[in-house]
């Protein structure tokens, strides 16, 4: 489809990336590595959006705009998450998920 690369390959690649992200999300304890797994998941969804945009509506840009907005939301989420992580580090001196029993202000 894309000069020899079928859509299925893109989808399989995105699937593998998504589930690697899921694995990291479940296994990791450190908050920053969990955040990195989340970025992997978001990125795989972006690949799907872009590939489907080329398949279904190559003359419009819908998938591309969704991807741009996902990237913007990911940036906002990463900045807020890192602010929270730094605040937790100040109080508890490490950032493992098990130590966070309460998130009260």
């Amino acid at each position, binding site marked *: *489809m*894309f000069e*020899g*690369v079928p859509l*299925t*390959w*893109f*989808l*399989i*690649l995105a*699937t*593998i*990336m*998504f*589930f*690697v992200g*899921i*694995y*990291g999300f*479940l*296994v*990791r*304890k*450190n908050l*920053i*590595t969990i*955040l*990195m*797994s989340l*970025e*992997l998941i978001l990125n795989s969804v*972006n*690949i799907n959006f*872009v590939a489907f945009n*080329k*398949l279904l509506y*190559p*003359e*419009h*840009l819908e998938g*591309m*705009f969704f*991807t*741009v*907005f996902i*990237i*913007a939301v990911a*940036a*906002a*989420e*990463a*900045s*807020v998450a*890192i*602010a*929270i*992580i*730094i*605040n937790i*580090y100040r109080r508890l001196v490490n950032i493992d998920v098990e130590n966070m029993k309460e998130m009260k202000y």
Partner: protein
Amino acid sequence: MTNNQIMFFIFSAVIVIFSILTVTSRRILRAATFLLFVLVSTAGLYFMLRFNFLAAIQLTLYAGGIVVLIIFSILLTSHVGAKLEQPGLAKVIFSALTALVGAAVAIAAILQYKFPETVIPKERTNIEDIGQALISTGKYGYALPFEVISILLLAAMIGSIIIAKKRKD
């Protein structure tokens, strides 16, 4: 084997290998670097699909912004040579099982569905079209989400400053 296929295989091999390394590496700074490689080769895929503007956004915002932010916070919260502790065996087995079963189901569903064969036009996405769509309010216009996302970014900026600020206790 066309050039496009060779490029796709290189990018996808980099993405798969380095994303697995990202979630398994025990040194957290290395994991962040592997994440950077994954994001850069995703930008390569966007270039292959002729979304040049999107690839530029991916490089500047993801690879340039978010990864640098993550590396900064790693340096603030842990020692450079520190190793993460090994996760428990049962946890690894069950998480890997979940991921493998999920991936198998999704890939089986993808392979069974017959996607229509379409020929993609070769032209690149035009920056002018993108700009027009972002400020138009009609059909295929994205003025409202554009404004909403700008308010979200402002809120996120103020929120993260307030949260990370040092309090006088």
